[in-house]
């Protein structure tokens, strides 16, 4: 921790603490969840940055949504999100969210998720709280390789 960072801690402790302490709860629909174990275990070790998985939405301030969202699962997502205390953040986790968002033809993923009759495609319009969702993508190289 250098001098610059200590100044930041003294000026805005809440902001810095929110940055370095993220308790994650995840909503998984099968395909994206396979990317969570490498992130929290020895491969990438998210706990270095203070990210740990927790069991209930009350304890969490980070919501990982893995896999594509269908209209039916949207209700469960919103209900879980509303139980989390403020301030809270949402991350669309894994490659699936990219496929559902990007408009141009992206081979397999495009057809599987974007053209699927039941998947929720208007992710940009879905605004939870003050944050636009999904604000951030975490995509591993392996998963992209597998898609092609």
């Amino acid at each position, binding site marked *: 921790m250098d001098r610059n960072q200590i100044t930041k801690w003294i000026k805005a402790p809440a902001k810095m*603490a929110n940055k370095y*302490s993220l*308790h994650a709860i995840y909503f998984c629909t099968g395909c994206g969840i396979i990317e969570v174990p490498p992130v929290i275990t*020895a491969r990438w070790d998210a706990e270095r940055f*203070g990210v740990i998985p*927790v069991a209930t939405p*009350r*304890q969490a301030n980070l919501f990982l949504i893995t896999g594509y969202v269908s209209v039916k699962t949207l209700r469960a997502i919103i209900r879980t999100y509303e139980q989390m*205390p403020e301030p809270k953040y949402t991350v669309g986790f894994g490659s699936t969210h990219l496929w559902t968002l990007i408009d141009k033809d992206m081979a397999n993923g495009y057809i599987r998720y974007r053209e699927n009759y039941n998947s929720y495609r208007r992710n940009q319009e879905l605004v939870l709280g003050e944050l636009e969702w999904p604000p951030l993508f975490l995509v591993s190289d392996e998963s992209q390789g597998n898609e092609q």
Partner: protein
Amino acid sequence: MVTKIIHIIFSPILALVVGIFFLGLARKIMARIHWRYGPPLVQPVIDMIRLFYQKSVSHGRMFDLGIILSLAGSIVVVLFLPFGQICPLAGSGGLLVILYIMLLAPLGLALSGGQGANPNISIGISRKLILSLGYEVPLLLVLLAVMTCYKTISIVEVVNAQDNTGWSITSWPLFLSGLSYFLILPAILGIRPFDVSSAPQEISSGPMAEYGGKYLAIATIEHAFVLFISIALFVNLFLGGAANPAIFFVKMLVVFVLGLCINAVFPRFKIEQAIRYLWKWPTLLAFLGLIMTLVIRS
């Protein structure tokens, strides 16, 4: 008088610092055992700053008061425990008082969780109380053996007596009691293989399920105190206490790291397996220790 007041204010703060250091150390050591780099040592402090700034949801008056009762109970126990030579309430009680007040912490959590009205909390609390039924029997036998051996209920006198006779874990009949206490230590701390009550994968971390924000921060502080109390009790009774806080801290560290190694390699017991274990080997050892102490001392 002034020293006493300073000690009363100072010793819970010291206990809190040690407990939170242990929480951070636990996460770091577990990460190293998993071949991960792990979070910084101050991670629990960062978490706590974040939690205190977060908005939190209350479920009623008892939900607020129960957790404060639990925290208060833990702080009071700390005042009765010698930390090195610091013991603010040395003359006012002893092992019996500690035994009674130690029950306030789980009771407060139970009262608070009762108003949370979440089925996972009820399951967690019932498991916690069954588990405490499991470890209270050997714990009581162990404390009885120690009290009989040194013919006192004052924990300070037990520590002073060990200055002359050597650590009680190295003396013959009390070795069994010490071993028994070490075997039930994971159950008292609620770490694996005895983390049935707070199992995150089964019952959404049990009694903690509805705590968020400030409540979770207070629950973490309470957990740090419980960590301190159960290890400090072991060090005082069996490892001869210490002449100053630094040596005492080193002894606590050794015991805690040994406990962590058990925590890192064992999977979780089911509740009936935990009770079967707790009422078999630790109870048997503690009972043998008590009988032999009685025979030798009389």
